[in-house]
């Protein structure tokens, strides 16, 4: 076994799957940071459950990406032996977990995106991916309901919870345009029937988020010109730290298993 980094195919199908898989994986890592730190025991368990759901989705997607790539990379190698620039998760999920309001606003944003993605992937030309979507869409629906309910409670709650929720929304909103930037990977995946262009989900996503914000009596923030670029492998300064923590064991003890 060796722990040197692997290089990844730039094949659009592989990149398309890795974008979704990495987004699940990195959000799972961030959510798992709540384990033992949840505001109440019940919520602590709920957050860990959702982190595990996302790890499960990431495993299935990375496995499938490895199969399509055809270089013999399995889920573990893809999760632990890539360098930062070869991760293609959206920047939104790598931001530090922040307070509970930040976590819930982000979860609502990502769960809404993933739910819409999975719903469209049910009819993917790749039957394996369609099967993964069949399982994952149920999880994503629950994640969205859970997070959306919290956004409403916090946004329409006390002055303190509202202040924190508004602050979280302002920070996070700047990272949402990235979700819907059209590019060659999206176009190719769309053309081969693998899955939707993320850009085509923007209208439905914005609509669902607006409903949540309205119920929470929160205003949708102003659009900004800033574009994050995690989906292209160019990440925020937080990404290196999260990978160092995630990859430490496999890099130190290559091939180590439980």
């Amino acid at each position, binding site marked *: 076994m060796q722990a040197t980094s692997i290089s990844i195919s730039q094949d659009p199908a592989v990149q398309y799957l890795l974008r979704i898989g990495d987004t699940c994986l990195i959000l799972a890592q961030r959510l798992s940071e709540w384990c033992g730190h949840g505001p109440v025991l019940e919520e602590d*368990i*709920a957050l860990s*459950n959702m982190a595990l759901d996302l790890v499960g989705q990431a495993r299935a997607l990375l496995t499938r990406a490895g199969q399509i790539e055809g270089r013999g990379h399995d889920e573990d190698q893809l999760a632990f032996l890539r360098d930062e620039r070869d991760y293609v998760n959206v920047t939104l999920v790598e931001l530090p977990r922040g307070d509970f309001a930040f976590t819930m606003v982000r979860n609502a944003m990502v769960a809404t995106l993933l739910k819409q993605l999975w719903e469209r992937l049910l009819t993917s030309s790749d039957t394996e991916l369609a099967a993964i979507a069949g399982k994952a869409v149920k999880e994503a629906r629950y994640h969205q309901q859970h997070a959306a309910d919290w956004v409403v409670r916090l946004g329409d709650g006390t002055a303190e919870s509202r202040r924190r929720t508004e602050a979280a929304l302002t920070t996070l909103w700047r990272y949402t345009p990235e979700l819907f930037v059209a590019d060659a990977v999206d176009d190719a995946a769309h053309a081969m029937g693998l899955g939707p262009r993320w850009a085509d989900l923007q209208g439905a996503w914005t609509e669902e988020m607006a409903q949540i914000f309205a119920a929470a009596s929160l205003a949708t923030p102003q659009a900004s010109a800033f574009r994050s670029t995690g989906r292209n492998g160019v990440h925020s300064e937080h990404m290196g730290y999260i990978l160092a923590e995630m990859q430490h064991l496999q890099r130190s003890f290559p091939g180590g298993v439980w």
Partner: protein
Amino acid sequence: MTTPSSPSTPAADPAMATEWPLWEVFVRSKAGLDHKHCGSLHAADPRMAIQLARDVYTRRQEGTSVWVVRSDQIVASDPGEKSMYFDPAQDKVYRHPTFYVLPESVDHM
């Protein structure tokens, strides 16, 4: 005879001011079976209680249906009256329907 206490409100009970109310959780493991009490949890309202019950008590495939009930809505017998309430049944074996011979066709009633 004890009077069941009325549901406590944050204003009435200082201990409740910083704690979410307690809920009892009942889970049905599969269709046709009854809901069984499996524990309790704290939640702010019914919707949250159902969601957290799902997360806390059904994450290992234990359930197909969940009920939650505010704990302070349950009327319970008084432990102090246990002997008066339940001991008199001890020597009434004739109340069990075991002194009949049932026809074969209904033997599994």
